[in-house]
């Protein structure tokens, strides 16, 4: 019997191969891959056929056509004569503007509240908890509608603008701030600032090297920050200290000149910051609490100053716990910025919507903005993963 079976298997090498573990797994993988590929091909093909059947225009040629619609705020030069492609770039930049500002502000606010949550002060803990439970549990879209109606209804019209400080105007058209008038000196100051920051890092490198070699401590943090402030300040003083300002002025319907923060941008930024900060606060709290108490006690018993304990012992360990979930929050904030469409901030989705409506090329417009969101998210992930690796425990 056994002899017989072996003979059969030998007689049928295909069957033998099929029962081979490696071969089988390769076959399955090819099948799965083929299935996915066929599905994708079918979807694309079907879409194209249907679009053609319904006489709907296809292709990306529309990107070069004149957009012919206006956009309220833009970081680059844009007029209705510009192309759809340029309008989309305006949208991307507006999305990046609100996301980056939001990420920075939410991190700062969230960290403060997170520290408040582990504070020994009962009131601070209570306030932090209340804040988190309130804003985390209301849908962001509703919060945006709420803030937008507050901003547009609570502030006066431009003709009756609030004027808390000279040159600063608060209206339902946004916040108007004076900015330094155009002057080549400011470019020099900007260069000086970059140089100052580079100087800070050089100083830090040198100080740490010296610490390793000699054990002598150099207060690079305070000196370095001094350098960052002093270098641009000196540049400004040396080049004549221009103080001329470009102040907003009421002309006709509205203010012109100065810097304007629109109610839409402000609302979106406020909504995103307040909402995301609740999650960040919890992440920071859990990060701090994840460091064993013994670490703190051991560091203190070695005679380290409390500020050093925080900076050198607690924070580096807490950050390892904090960074991965923080990446999620940064990604969420960026993706949530697409809710801008509800309150009229001209972000990528808002402009893509208009584009797809005016051109009728919905599939192309959706493909474009989805790939842009994907790229932005992947870039954030990439950066955060790199940072995470840097902060991760190095085992020696």
């Amino acid at each position, binding site marked *: 019997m056994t002899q017989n079976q072996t003979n059969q298997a030998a007689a049928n090498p295909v069957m033998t191969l099929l029962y081979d573990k490696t071969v089988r797994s390769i076959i399955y993988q090819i099948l799965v891959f083929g299935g996915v590929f066929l599905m994708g091909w079918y979807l694309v093909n*079907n879409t194209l056929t249907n679009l053609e059947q319904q006489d709907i*225009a296809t292709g990306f040629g529309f990107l070069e056509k004149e957009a012919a619609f206006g956009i309220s705020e833009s970081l680059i030069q844009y007029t209705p004569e510009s192309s759809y492609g340029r309008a989309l770039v305006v949208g991307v930049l507006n999305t990046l503007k609100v996301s980056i500002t939001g990420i920075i502000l939410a991190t700062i606010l969230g960290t403060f509240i997170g520290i408040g949550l582990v504070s020994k002060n009962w009131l601070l803990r209570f306030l932090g908890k209340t804040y988190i439970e309130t804003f985390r549990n209301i849908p962001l879209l509703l919060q945006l509608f709420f803030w937008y109606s507050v901003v547009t209804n609570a502030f006066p019209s431009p003709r009756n603008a609030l004027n808390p400080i000279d040159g600063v105007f608060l209206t339902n058209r946004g916040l108007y701030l004076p900015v330094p008038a155009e002057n080549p000196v400011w470019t020099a100051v900007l260069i000086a600032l970059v140089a100052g920051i580079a100087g800070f890092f050089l100083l830090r490198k040198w100080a740490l090297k010296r610490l390793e070699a000699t054990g002598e401590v150099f207060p690079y943090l305070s000196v370095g920050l001094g350098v960052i402030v002093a270098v641009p300040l000196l540049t400004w003083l040396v080049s004549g200290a221009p103080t001329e300002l470009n102040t907003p002025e009421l002309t006709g319907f509205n203010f012109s000149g100065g810097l304007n923060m629109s109610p839409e941008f402000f609302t979106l930024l406020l909504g995103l910051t307040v909402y995301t900060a609740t999650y960040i606060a919890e992440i920071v709290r859990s990060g701090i609490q994840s460091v064993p108490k013994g670490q703190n006690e051991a560091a203190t018993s070695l005679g380290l100053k409390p500020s050093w304990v925080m900076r050198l012992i607690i924070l580096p360990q807490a950050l390892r716990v904090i960074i991965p979930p923080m990446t999620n929050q940064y990604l969420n904030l960026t993706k949530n910025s697409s809710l801008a469409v509800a309150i009229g901030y001209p972000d990528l989705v808002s402009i893509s919507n*208009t584009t797809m*409506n005016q051109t009728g090329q919905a599939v192309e417009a959706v493909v474009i903005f989805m790939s842009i969101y994907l790229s932005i998210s992947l870039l954030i992930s990439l950066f955060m993963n790199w940072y995470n690796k840097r902060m991760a425990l190095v085992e020696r």
Partner: protein
Amino acid sequence: MFKTLTSTAAATALSLTMVATGAQAGETVDSVRDKGYVQCGVNTALAGFSAATGGEWEGLDVDVCRAVAAAMFGDADAVRFTPLTAAQRFTALQSGEVDVLSRNTTWTTTRDTSLGLNFAGINYYDGQGFMVRKDLGVTSAKQLSGAAICVEPGTTTELNLADYFRANNMDFEPVVIENTTEVTAAFFSGRCDVYTTDASGLASARNVSAENPEDYVILPEIISKEPLGPVVRHGDDEWLDIVKWSHIAMIQAEEFGITSDNVDDMMDTDNPGIKRFLGVTPGMGEALGLDEKWAYNIVKQVGNYGESYQRNVTEKLGLERGLNALWTDGGLMYAFPIR
């Protein structure tokens, strides 16, 4: 295991092919008939044209949908409404989410061609205007340079606005909000100096949505032509015919002087044109693939164009017939011969 996989794959591939070949001409009429109602895309909230008051959809645009339902099923209530924003409407129609779009949509070349749509007629001749708060003291659109202007995205309004300001060398700050309710709320809260849309839409916002209509004025300039009408997608000419002639039947009924009240008496008339229209003399229904009483049902259940206009536009918005009067009264409403 291997066998199961292959057979599943084969079954999937087969069902997918069947889906792919499902799209054919005449499919809209068939699918509407199968499901027993017309799915109609309307404005989310535009008093006089389409607004849900007390759970019922009412308005001039809504009546077009009801007329199509009356023609198809003999029942004007065999219609379901999908409220759509300006930006959603074409995708909803193209993808088959709605069978007909009756949402104050302007007939333009681009929409007629590269969006793959067909306009079935014009049920309202309009033009774009501007509304401002009275206390601004503005009397002409030429004084609006630098103003913040509330506008809905994805509309011809948005494009005309940019064109008009470009042509007159003026600047403006667009405040673009998708939902009609939200955009008027932003205007009334003072976020914008100006609200721009079709003149009928301005009247609707001023007379119905504003707390105090006296505080707002509509500027005299009408900067564009906005022929508004029902739209269907390419690919089903039979369906286009039904929507087109349902709309024309309402105008023709007004020309004949047939109203929802006297339509039953009119059945006894000697006028051959009216007999043909009401299906007393058969033929028209058959030509459209409908019941012979299709036009009778429209007039009986929805009313003629004049009745619909009076009920929705004149009474709610206080707008006169103007361009929308019958051609015999100096307007543009002109029914093609039903014969």
